[in-house]
């Protein structure tokens, strides 16, 4: 766990620079439609565009992984590497959040009430979150090397806006996608235009966050 301070200020400065640069250069959008290979829309898929041959600017953004009603919210949280994520506990009871993923291994002891702790994610990759007290709780933080990212809605759609004109590698990630079915494509983003992207993912069986005591009575 790292308290953000200098990193945030530095990131913020860079962000202003980046924003200035992006606004000066003409920016376009990428609209993506992500389906499963049998045609069903997929929500919670992270779509991100990595600039080709240019460094990706660090864009500060506020990111929250909330614990509420014995669940994590959101189920999938995409963040740019270097982002400090806040973990507020909005339940009246304790949560013991952990991850042992290679991208970030940590443990947070969150008392009930309004306790918030902050973790900075600076390594790209998947961070699977669990709670040592409530086995039903599950969520993913997906750390990407670019500020141009978003996740799909219920219709499998997502729009990345303010993407500076240029060449990008567009990638998609979903917690249920089958290993080896990673999707990526080269995409040229034009100034003031929308570039369309479509991908079909091969999914494993649906893996989602269980409701507390979903099976029946509250478990202990």
């Amino acid at each position, binding site marked *: 766990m790292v308290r953000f301070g200098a990193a945030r200020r530095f990131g913020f400065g860079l962000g202003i620079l980046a924003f200035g640069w992006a606004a000066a250069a003409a920016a376009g959008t990428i609209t993506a439609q992500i389906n499963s290979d049998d045609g069903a829309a997929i929500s919670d898929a992270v779509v991100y565009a990595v600039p080709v041959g240019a460094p990706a600017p660090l864009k500060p953004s506020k990111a929250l992984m909330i614990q509420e009603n014995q669940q994590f919210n959101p189920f999938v949280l995409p963040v740019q590497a270097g982002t400090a994520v806040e973990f507020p506990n909005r339940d009246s009871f304790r949560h013991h959040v952990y991850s*042992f993923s290679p991208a970030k291994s940590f443990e947070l002891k969150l*008392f009930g009430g309004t306790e918030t702790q902050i973790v900075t994610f600076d390594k790209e990759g998947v961070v699977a979150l669990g709670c*040592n007290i409530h086995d039903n709780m599950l969520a993913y933080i997906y750390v990407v090397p670019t500020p141009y990212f978003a996740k799909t809605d219920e219709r499998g759609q997502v729009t990345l806006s303010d993407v500076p004109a240029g060449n990008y590698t567009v990638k998609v990630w979903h917690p249920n996608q089958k290993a080896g079915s990673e999707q990526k494509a080269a995409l040229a983003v034009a100034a003031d235009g929308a570039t369309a992207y479509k991908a079909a993912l091969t999914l494993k*069986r649906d893996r989602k966050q269980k409701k507390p005591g979903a*099976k*029946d*009575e509250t478990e202990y």
Partner: protein
Amino acid sequence: MGALARAVFSALTCSAFCIGAGALHADDDLPSLTIKGLLDGRLAFTDTPRSWEDKGFGKTRYGGDATGDHRELARLAEAAAVMQAHLTWDLSAVVHITANSQQRHAVDVVEAYVQYKPAPTGNLGVRLKAGAFFPPISLENTNLAWTSPYTISSSAINTWVGEELRTIGAEASAVYRSDTWDASLSAALYGFNDPTGSLLTWRGWAIHDREAGLFERLPLAPLPNFKVGSGSAPGQAGAVDPFKELDDRIGVYIAGGLNHDDGYKLRAIYYDNRANNRVFDGRQYAWHTRFGAVSAATDLTEGLEVVAQGMAGRTTMASFPTHTVADNDFASAFVLLSHTWDQHRLSGRAEIFDINDNDHTPDDPNAEHGTALTVSYVYRPTPTQRLTIEALHVNSNRDVRARFGQSRRQSEDLVQLSYRLFFSWE
């Protein structure tokens, strides 16, 4: 020694628990206390055979009256509370108590243990449990206070687990977590399980939901072999005291489990109480009981689950130093299908159970064979209420009934209506 040791032991766990509870609102909200519980009011419409609970030969919890007539009963089937005190972030104490209209004491302790469960820091982790708790056998009794989400009555296998099995000792587990599955390997050392096998032998399998507390005695029919002077098991009390230490030998089990993200679960256990089956304390014989059990559960489609379990083992008792008086192979298996939609759950379970009597002791015929069908419908109007209607049909053939002038083959029907109210405090 048994009762005293159990009392000391329960007191120890309870004090760990009370230290936790008593120190509430200490630094940083730790220790903290959570209490969850349930009340179960029951209407039962019975068949005519007398229940084993009333020293009869029926397999169900509620049976006919002394005159051989069926009954309609209203009972407090269960009042249970599970109290968990988190002593630190990794260490907690759990005490599970129960009250019902059939048990010996007004309130009894079902489980009392401390658990060390650190947050995983890598793929491999450890867990430790010490005290009194259920061995990891059932994929059926997964809910609060060892109840089943599917039915009122547990399967024959888990009914017996609830009656005669309790790990009173310590269990260590290694857990390996991958991206898509986790596997555990557990080993336990325990005592106080020497009588295990006596109820299974002398009463046979049963199908109900009343698990035994640590201080409980479970009734036996007045079998002729208990008679001093003429019986082959002279002096056996008219009730089994399941959690007694008789021979000062330690029992063991090894258990494995696998949970896969694709929705399936597997469990396997080998259990051996390693009892010296020549020991008798004047009321209770020690039985050498060992068995293997496997269970599996998976979601077939959205909302449709299947749970299956099998168990096979052997139990022996040698009241005469020269030869084994009782030697029985026991086995049972069930398949349960359950469909959930909205606030509803419909479940059906089919099972078989069997005891082979390998000895030739003339006054101790323990062979039995039976089948049972259970159909249960659960409606949950709110998260804190559960309404269940269950029909249970048991067919069984048990040799010892003939000694009492009854038919070996008996069929029983029991219809139960249960209203459960859940409460929690934290």
